[in-house]
């Protein structure tokens, strides 16, 4: 029966071993074959494990391990921190070194806390882990396939000092393996090991192409995530001290696990998920080759943070006062990310801000802590991963082709690169249109936010802004003149396959969104919260969805026969330019003249070009980022201060819990009093 007990370890080991192999192999052709094979195996393995685990009792599969395995976990954790420490010494960054030392001290200190243990739960696959597994394995596999064609081109034009393909695939594959390990780990030492492992991999991948700017960004990523790592270790120690357990399950099943640990872990998750004020590393990570960005944003890394928050929050349903502040930290990121995305013309930065914004929304959902919000969070994690994976890969492909990632340079792309344009349009449409999942999850999230009108304003403004920046981009890509036939696009086969796969996933989940929502995410949320019938209103939506689909189908057919199929060449006119359009002869005579140019004074031919609106001179990115960071730090201080006073009131402030907590207690309290009304109102809602 228990096939998984060996399929799962193989699934984790596969990318790790494959990474080592890909690092050793010198022949490009063999390496590409290996990567393709691994991608197929990972996707198949992921789906297989998910399927097998659903067959177990209660749909939860666990694997017990012998007591000595705990030492292995600690050993691995120490080893990976030691590697980070060595890196820190090599690049002479004393902050990272300090964080490394603190982590090692924490892990060793933790050894003294935990008492005698028998066998323990090493791996566990429940609903949340299943979603994450599917996301990592399927999207990750598509990205792997894409990377073959991309990296092949990339290496030809790589800047001097760039790392080799061996190095790239070694780290890239390990990254995926570590992420798979992370989402199924139940034991905290193993979890921390995988967590630190992904940090290290992201550092190596961001610095892949060498050069000063890239290594600076890589170091920033490592610095911020090491800081998160310290908080993680600290949180784990507090949990262990209070409960004596060492797996997630044991910790939360005991009532004496206080909110202090959860808050430490949540802030660690903020760093990983690049929420404000920790967003700078994810924006800096854009310098890496595109498959890396796609991997960071869609399949691994940032998803680890929200995974942890989603894992934690439902266990603290009684502590609404604190979880609501977590929701605020998410909501401000949702709004801030969307606002800054509107001001960007760099395509990759728009995508990065949009990711940050969506991660904020997931955290907000987790913080709201209701079944409806939880279902919305799960839906956003999965739908976002597929769409964002597709979008990043398309932007990477476009960048290689046109040599720019600026949205304004993508003008008329529909004619130049029809296939890629179609893919990116599918990706973008899925971020904002019905019946795709993102819109529906946002709809659920907004309904769930009704618990707090203060959160609401963030949600409402954020979701309006989201539409704004996507619509601008879509418009730019399909901004073309009349072309009777679109040319065929030259595209490497691996890229084509990967993009088509992701687009199919987007369309498939788009059409079945309603089914997925009611049959998968809703029951999952109900299992976690142990309540039924919380989503009765979604049933009503089925009816609406039917009407939408029906109307679009009927009109689609009509439109096809009348307007598309019946379209005649004679219908075509030139755009209105006050009657001063250039003539057909002029266009044919000079290749520089376009059909939409016009005559100005004295018959001189002028070109008209209107750019998108980016709030230039109104929103200053630096200034807004500064304000948002300030607000986000304030919320984090409120979070910590609130937690401490909360614990105090419960007479549970153990003198040796967290030294870091104590030092910020004062600051947190003053900040809390600053926002006194703010916190009070949250308290009110809690009741």
């Amino acid at each position, binding site marked *: 029966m228990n096939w998984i007990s060996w399929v799962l370890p193989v699934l984790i080991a596969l990318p790790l071993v494959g990474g080592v192999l890909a690092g050793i192999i010198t022949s490009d052709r063999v390496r590409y074959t290996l990567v393709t094979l691994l991608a197929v195996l990972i996707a198949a393995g992921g789906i297989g494990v998910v399927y097998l685990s659903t067959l177990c009792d209660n749909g939860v599969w666990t694997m017990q391990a012998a007591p000595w395995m705990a030492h292995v976990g600690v050993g691995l954790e120490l080893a990976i921190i030691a590697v980070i420490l060595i890196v820190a010494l090599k690049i002479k960054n004393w902050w990272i070194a300090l964080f490394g030392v603190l982590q090692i001290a924490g892990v060793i200190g933790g050894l003294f806390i935990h008492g005698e243990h028998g066998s323990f739960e090493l791996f566990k696959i429940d609903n949340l882990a299943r979603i994450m597994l599917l996301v990592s394995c399927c999207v990750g596999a598509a990205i792997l396939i894409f990377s073959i064609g991309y990296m092949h081109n990339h290496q030809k034009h790589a800047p001097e000092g760039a790392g080799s393909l061996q190095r790239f695939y070694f780290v890239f594959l390990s990254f995926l393996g570590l992420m798979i390990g992370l989402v199924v780990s139940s034991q905290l030492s193993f979890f921390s090991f995988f967590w630190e492992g992904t940090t290290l991999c992201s550092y190596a991948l961001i610095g892949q192409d060498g050069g000063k700017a890239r290594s600076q960004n890589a170091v920033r990523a490592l610095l911020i995530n090491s800081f998160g790592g310290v908080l993680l270790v600290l949180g784990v120690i507090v949990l262990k001290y209070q409960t004596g357990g060492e797996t997630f399950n044991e910790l939360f099943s005991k009532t004496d696990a206080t909110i202090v640990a959860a808050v430490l872990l949540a802030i660690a998750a903020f760093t990983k998920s690049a929420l404000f004020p920790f967003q700078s590393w994810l924006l800096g990570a854009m310098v890496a080759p595109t498959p890396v960005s796609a991997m960071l944003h869609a399949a691994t890394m940032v998803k680890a943070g929200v995974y942890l928050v989603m894992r934690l929050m439902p266990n603290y349903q009684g502590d609404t006062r604190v979880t609501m502040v977590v929701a605020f930290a998410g909501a401000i990121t949702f709004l801030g990310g969307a606002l800054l995305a509107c001001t960007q013309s760099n395509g990759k930065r728009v995508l990065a801000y949009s990711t940050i914004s969506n991660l904020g929304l997931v955290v907000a959902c987790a913080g709201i802590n209701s079944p409806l919000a939880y279902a919305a969070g799960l839906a956003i994690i999965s739908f976002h991963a597929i769409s964002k994976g597709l979008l990043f890969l398309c932007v990477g492909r476009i960048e290689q082709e046109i040599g720019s990632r600026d949205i304004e340079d993508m003008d008329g792309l*529909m004619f130049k690169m029809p296939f890629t344009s179609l893919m990116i349009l599918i990706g973008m449409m899925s971020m*904002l*249109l*019905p019946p795709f999942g993102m*819109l529906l999850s946002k*709809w659920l999230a*907004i*309904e769930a936010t*009704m618990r707090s*009108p203060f959160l*609401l*304003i963030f949600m*409402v*403004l954020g*979701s*309006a*802004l989201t*539409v*704004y920046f996507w*619509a*601008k981009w*879509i*418009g730019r890509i*399909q*901004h*073309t*003149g*009349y*072309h009777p036939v679109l040319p065929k696009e030259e595209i490497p086969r691996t890229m084509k396959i990967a993009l088509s796969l992701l687009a199919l996933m987007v369309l498939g989940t788009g059409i079945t969104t309603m089914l997925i929502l009611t049959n998968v995410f809703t029951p999952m949320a109900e299992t976690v919260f142990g309540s039924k019938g919380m989503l009765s*209103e979604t049933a*009503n*939506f089925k*009816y*609406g969805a039917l*009407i*939408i689909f029906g*109307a*679009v189908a009927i*009109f689609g057919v*009509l*439109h096809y026969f009348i*307007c*598309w199929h019946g*379209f*005649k060449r004679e*219908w*075509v*006119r030139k*755009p*209105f*330019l006050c009657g001063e359009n250039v003539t057909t002869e002029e266009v044919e005579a000079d290749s520089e003249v*376009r*059909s*939409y140019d016009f005559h100005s004074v004295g018959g001189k031919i002028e070109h*008209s*070009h*209107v750019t*998108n*609106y980016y709030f230039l001179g*109104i929103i200053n990115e630096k200034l807004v980022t500064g304000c948002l960071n300030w607000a986000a730090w304030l919320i984090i201080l409120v979070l910590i201060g609130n937690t401490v006073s909360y614990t105090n009131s419960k007479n549970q402030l153990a003198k040796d819990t967290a030294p870091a907590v104590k030092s910020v207690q004062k600051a947190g309290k003053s900040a809390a009093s600053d926002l006194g009304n703010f916190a009070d109102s949250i308290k009110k809602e809690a009741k």
Partner: protein
Amino acid sequence: MESLQKIISNPWVYAALVVVLTPFAGALLTSIDRKLTARMQGRIGPSWFQPLYDVAKLFSKNPMALHRPQLIYATLHLVFMVVAVVLLALGCDLLMVLFVQAFSMICLVLGGMSVRSPYSWIGSQRKIMQMLGVEPVFLVMILALYLRNGSFLGSGLFSKAEPLLLSMPLMFLAFLCAIAIEMEKSPFDLSSSHHAHQEIVKGVTLEYSGPFLGLIEIAHFYEFAFFFGLMMAFWHTNIIIGLIVAFAGLVFMTVLDNSFARLTPNWMLRFMWTVPLSMALANLIWLWVK
């Protein structure tokens, strides 16, 4: 009589009736609007059936277009507007109605952006700015309705005996501003003005003509009826007073349209995100405190 009622209460028949009759209601409202405007300007104004004649004339014209995708967006604009009206009439989830209506607007924007015309492009840019201005107000209004009715369903509007306007007066004012934007009334007629005082007169719909412009005009009828219906819902207990309220809103917008000069998109956004949004939020908080 009873059998007639039975037939109408069948959701499919009802939906079909809504689809067929709404554009005529919209056309009537449009001509009222035009008559009022004419009287304010000391003219007699066109015939009551003028909007219908206009559309009929558009459909008799030769089709002209810049390219194919442009036409898809015209169709989608109409389809989603019709769906929004039907969903509202059937009492579906209001958030969904709003999203569908917003998508209909996005289609108009994308259609305007798909062609190589600078005027159309500027109009589209302004249209999304306008959407950015109105969406938050609409969302807050629906959330306030939830607080009051305990349901997101459109049918929940009729669950309370007390008229909506009494508990949501500020919301109504904010809603009027939002409708003025959606209906392209001055000073908010930035993307597609009816008057020559704007520097972009038919921005977003500039490159549509003939039957395709006809589709957009029909969508506009639906939209007019949609918002008029929502205004009427503010006094749902009595249809006569409801009509008066909605008609007052209409007159307010016409006066607004005829008494304001041109203002910039940035001003519009700043205004919407400060005054009407604050009013809407204040009203929301009243309901919350209650």
